[in-house]
């Protein structure tokens, strides 16, 4: 282990292709063929929901329920999108979703990184107790929290303010975020810190200059997870927000649910519109999962 670390610290990376592996046997080729077939099949299955959703959004209720799910809409109903844009404040919801999600994700990851760093790297008596406290935080069912949180927000005058949902998202995502970070922080080499401290580096500097960049991949991972959760959340929004101007995109979906039935095509169109921004953000963040390692090890 130490030997490897030595190499890593000096930035030298061993990379020698193995000559034995460069000429694959027939069996290996066949195995690879099967593997690729499976991979492609799985990819098709996984991409199918997006295609389905797109088709779904171009149908009306009649077609949604009566045609096979993957049938092309015979008469694409683009008016569903027009309906979505003209009925209700979807533009406002969109804007709110973006900034609320972004703020909550950034704060959550920053706070969780602080805590994880303190728990895994620093020496103090109560570190496992504090870890326990955070872990218990993910065991409470969301619906148990609604009444107490509502009354808390009423008392603190945060009710019907974006702060109420941002704070809730942070609080309820911290435990999972810390848990995921934990597994990675345990594997960070201590030698880097030792060297840094010998060089007279402070904890703060070390955290921001060394640790955070090294954990970019896992931060990207938790960012994706947090983002998806916040983006799709609606129970807190509905409960803590009354003013239309603070509501988010998930409310846009409910706009098309009626007392005795729903407008499914319009719901589909809302879902398509609302998936685009996170799809984009996901693709960007997804690359950071891999890129981070190289940049991390260079800095290390």
């Amino acid at each position, binding site marked *: 282990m130490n030997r490897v670390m030595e190499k890593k610290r000096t930035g030298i990376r061993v990379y020698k292709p193995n000559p034995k592996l460069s000429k694959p046997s027939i069996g290996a080729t066949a195995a690879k063929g099967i593997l690729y077939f499976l991979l492609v099949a799985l990819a098709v299955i996984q991409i199918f929901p997006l295609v389905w959703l797109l088709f779904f959004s171009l149908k009306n209720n009649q077609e949604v329920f009566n045609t096979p799910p993957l049938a092309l809409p015979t008469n694409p109903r683009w008016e569903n999108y027009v309906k979505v844009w003209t009925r209700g404040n979807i533009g406002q919801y969109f804007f709110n979703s973006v900034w609320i999600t972004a703020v909550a994700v950034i704060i959550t990851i920053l706070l969780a990184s602080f805590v994880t760093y303190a728990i895994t790297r620093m*020496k103090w008596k109560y570190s496992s107790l504090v870890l326990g406290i955070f872990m218990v935080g993910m*065991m409470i069912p969301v619906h148990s929290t609604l009444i107490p949180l509502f009354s*808390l927000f009423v008392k603190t005058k945060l009710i019907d303010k974006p702060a109420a949902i941002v704070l809730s998202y942070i609080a*309820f995502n911290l435990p999972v975020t810390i848990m995921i970070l934990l597994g990675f922080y345990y594997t960070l080499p201590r030698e880097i810190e030792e060297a840094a401290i010998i060089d007279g580096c402070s904890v703060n500097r070390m955290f921001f200059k060394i640790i955070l960049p090294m954990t970019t991949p896992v931060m990207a991972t938790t960012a994706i997870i947090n983002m998806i959760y916040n983006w799709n959340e609606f129970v807190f929004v509905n409960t803590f927000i009354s003013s239309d101007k603070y509501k988010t995109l998930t409310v846009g979906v409910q706009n098309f649910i009626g007392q005795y039935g729903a407008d499914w095509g319009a719901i589909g169109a809302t879902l398509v519109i609302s998936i685009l921004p996170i799809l984009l953000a996901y693709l960007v963040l*997804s690359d950071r999962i891999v890129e981070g390692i190289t940049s991390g090890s260079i800095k290390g």
Partner: protein
Amino acid sequence: MDKVMGDKKVIALYVLPALIVIMTLVYSPIVMTGYYGLMKWDGIGNMEFIGLNNYIRLLSDPLFWNSVYHSFLLAIFSVISLMGYLTIALVLSGKIKGASIFRKLYLVPMLLSSVAIAQLWMRIYHPTNGILNSLLSFLGSDNIPLWLADQKIVLYSVFIAIIWQYAGFYILIYYAALKNIPESLIEAARIDGASPWQIAYKIKIPLILNVIKVTVVLAVVGSLKYFDLIYVMTYGGPDGASEVIASYMYKQAFRSYNFGYASAIGFFLLLICLVITWLIRRLTASDEEIQY
């Protein structure tokens, strides 16, 4: 070293902000849930202290234990499916052409909200024109199951949807963990003639064991308090056949106006999660932390 890393002020600065947030927003509801659990309360008007009566009722409520059983089944299924997720992540993290494209595609369903996922699976399971049954009747099967109406299979139908729903989440975590392993280590093993399987089992998996432990806890806790798809797809029915703890609790709290009783269920659920997490951590405890 210890002096620097044991600086109380720094530790406080790092831990306190998050701790304050979680104490006010998560622990106050936990305490209140415990408190409501001792009350006879409809969740609307006035409450009345009834001691442990809700918990006594809980112990002899067959519908509750039915939901507990289903939730535990889900937890078991989820933990087993972790192996599948891990396998996919292992393949993707290997030297595969187009791995990054596959990875991106595989995780796409994760972006969908549960509203969309529920609709999708309801279309798949639809008894007459659903994808699954169309396929089965095309293949000539005349014993076509009623995926969501048959009380014997509805639970498993929903489980499949849930396991699919979470695939992206766990594959993503595993993938990030695997990519975190220095390439040099794997290269070294390869030079020594290790097969991809050996590399996976002898090097990669042991090195991400901490992450795997975390995902086991996440899967178990997540399953025990799972709610979304079950409520949207089946309401826990037909007649409780797919009821889980969280859906039963929700109905008791907001449909039957037994908020006090529901709080007792919520608190009990918290305790179950605590005990199981403690057990998992005890069973998987190891002395050394793995570093690369």
